[in-house]
């Protein structure tokens, strides 16, 4: 079941097309990475989902219903350009922002108390935002985003500008929220975090979606029967006993033995490679090389 469906979204600004027919399907309970280089249209799509701007064409469905203003309460959004009123007291401000999301004052207070205690920041309640460090402000922003227990959480570049401690904290929290049933969309070009926590991704480049699916499936698609081998043998010329259609990409001498990377014409040749190597050497390691999201990202974005 898809929690969020975007269908054929078009959006243009004066002489620039920000989105050209982008569709995505975000499964319920998934952590969905919206990837793409800067200026690809990620933020525009996110703003359309948040009803900050409207698409020129296309439809968005949340939970099977056409997106409407009352859906705001089901969404928690942490924009890339995020901040707080500097002169306002933290507690007051958090309550205000929660009320804007439809929480009652007493509910907001109760929830905030929980989170402030959890992060051990309850002494900040009456301090002004300008007195806090940036890292502290980020914590507040994060709490305010998730406070109303939204079904759908949207983070635009959540890891940009966060210090490593807060980044870890947010990662853990994102996973927790997913386990509690929330669906998370986040845009990023930090591929390491994608590998770590995303189960689905969509890749947007130059206003178009060029890739979408489960991270596992995508990686499977992009692997190309390349294997890494570590073996021990005396002066072994691999090309002498391997068939000529086995492509030896590299061979390096290790402290003990050798390491080779070999690309096969297809997965069905795996056993043949193994048995040939077993006959001629002592194998220490044999593993299929699966491309990282980073490699896939760069390959797809830079290819014509």
């Amino acid at each position, binding site marked *: 079941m898809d929690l969020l469906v975007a269908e054929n979204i078009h959006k243009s600004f004066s002489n620039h097309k920000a989105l050209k027919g982008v569709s995505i399907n975000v499964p319920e309970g998934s952590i969905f990475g919206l990837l793409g280089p800067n200026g690809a249209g990620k933020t525009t799509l996110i703003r359309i989902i948040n009803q*900050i701007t409207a698409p020129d064409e296309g439809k968005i469905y949340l939970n099977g219903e056409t997106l409407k*203003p009352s859906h705001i309460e089901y969404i928690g959004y*942490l*924009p890339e*350009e*995020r*901040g707080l*009123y500097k002169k306002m007291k933290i507690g007051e401000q958090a309550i205000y922002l929660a*009320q804007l999301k439809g929480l009652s004052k007493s509910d907001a207070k109760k929830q905030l108390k929980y989170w402030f205690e959890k992060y051990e920041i309850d002494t900040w309640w009456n301090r002004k935002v300008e007195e806090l460090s940036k890292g502290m402000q980020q914590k507040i922003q994060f709490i305010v985003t998730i406070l109303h227990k939204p079904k759908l959480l949207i983070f635009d570049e959540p890891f940009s500008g966060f210090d490593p401690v807060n980044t870890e904290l947010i990662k853990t929290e994102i996973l927790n929220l997913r386990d509690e049933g929330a669906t998370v969309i986040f845009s990023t070009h930090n591929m390491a975090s994608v590998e770590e926590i995303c189960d689905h991704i969509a890749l947007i480049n130059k206003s178009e979606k060029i890739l979408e699916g489960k991270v596992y499936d995508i990686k499977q698609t992009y692997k190309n029967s390349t294997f890494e081998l570590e073996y021990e043998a005396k002066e072994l010329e691999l090309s002498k006993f391997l068939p000529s259609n086995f492509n030896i990409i590299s061979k390096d001498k290790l402290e003990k033995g050798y390491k080779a990377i070999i690309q096969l014409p297809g997965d069905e040749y795996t056993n043949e490679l193994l048995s040939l190597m077993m006959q001629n050497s002592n194998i220490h390691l044999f593993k299929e090389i699966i491309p990282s999201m980073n490699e896939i990202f760069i390959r797809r974005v830079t290819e014509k």
Partner: protein
Amino acid sequence: MNKIWLIIQREYLSRVRKKSFIIMTILGPILMAAIMIVPAILASIGDETKTVGIVDESGFFIDAFENSTNIKFEAMHLDIDVAKRDYEKLGYNMVLYIPKPAYTYPSKIFIYSKKEPGMNVEQYIQRSINNDLRTMRLKDAGVSEELISAMKNSIDISSIKLTDQGGEEKRAGSLYFIIGLVLSISIYFFIFLYGTQVMRGVIEEKSNRIVEVIISSLKPFQLMMGKIVGIAMVGLTQFILWVILTSAIMTGAKLAFSNELQQIEKYQMQKTGQVIDPANTVEVNRNYEKTAMVFEAIKSINFKVIIFSFLFYFLFGYLIYAALFAAIGSSVDSEADTQQFVLPITVPLLVAIATVQMIANNPDGPIAFWMSMIPLTSPISMMARIPFGVPYWQIGLSMLLLVGSFVLLTWLAGKIYRVGILMYGKKPTYKELAKWIKYKA
């Protein structure tokens, strides 16, 4: 609707709680009261009585000078050189010397003193002696005393308005002008003071980067209107507090200084009542008549219309400009960039204020008419006209145009605002602003 209310609350409370607001609210009435009270107190304590010794060699003017509250005259019967030397010892402040004329009447008189005699004294002496001289010359020419005193009567103009119902009402032009001026200047200041606050608030939200968080919860237009209304309420609060505090201070001052004030009143009564000269009696009657005229003129002012239209133009004048200021705030990153956009929208305000005098000179003329119809100037220009009486159809048309353009301009401003608040970096051109209006919300 509930969310707009939250915005209004925040905008209102965050400003009302500021120290600067509290200070301004307290300081304003004190200043205002000071402007009204201090001159009165100064008038009551400032003037000590001055004694003028007269050395009249001509012999004509010994009785020409009436004592007033601050100036006493006494004949010295001394030689002028002795008088000049000894006047202080004898208790005089100065010596008034009228030399023996070469021909019938003197043409020059002198005041001798070490200290400045003061403008008031000089003028008083000059007026008295000239009056007397004129009377004497007329007498010499054989004019009867009755005729002379009758000549001192002057004529007052009464401008009467013929109403459509066939009635008559007394006009008081300068009073209308003052009322109109005060009202239009209040509107001008309110628009400027609080319009720029709207602009600053928008820039603050933009530069804090909080705006996107907020508009993911409600529509940008709601945020804009919430801010405009919230700040309007701050302005109204301040205005009401000023009125209340000023009148409280005035009442307090009246009680505290009642003695002085009574003296001022007495002094004024003396000044008007003390005179015995028949010529001056006429003067007195005329003064009372003037007061009566002012009261009648005040009665002729249609306060219902003035108050209603003041509130109307006050509100819509602010709203229309606040929306424009919000649009400007949204399209720039910092206050330093606002100049280019603020100037064009302040021009109509400045023109309106600059033409208030012109409008008062000819309140039914073409300039007055058009300025009070054009929506960006009408809040100020119409207020300058209203005390003089404006046909209802003109007021109605002007209000209609104002409301109509308020709706239109707010709609346009909202469109610019909506796009502008999410744009960072380059300052937009007017062409780009026009494009923003066309974007789909």
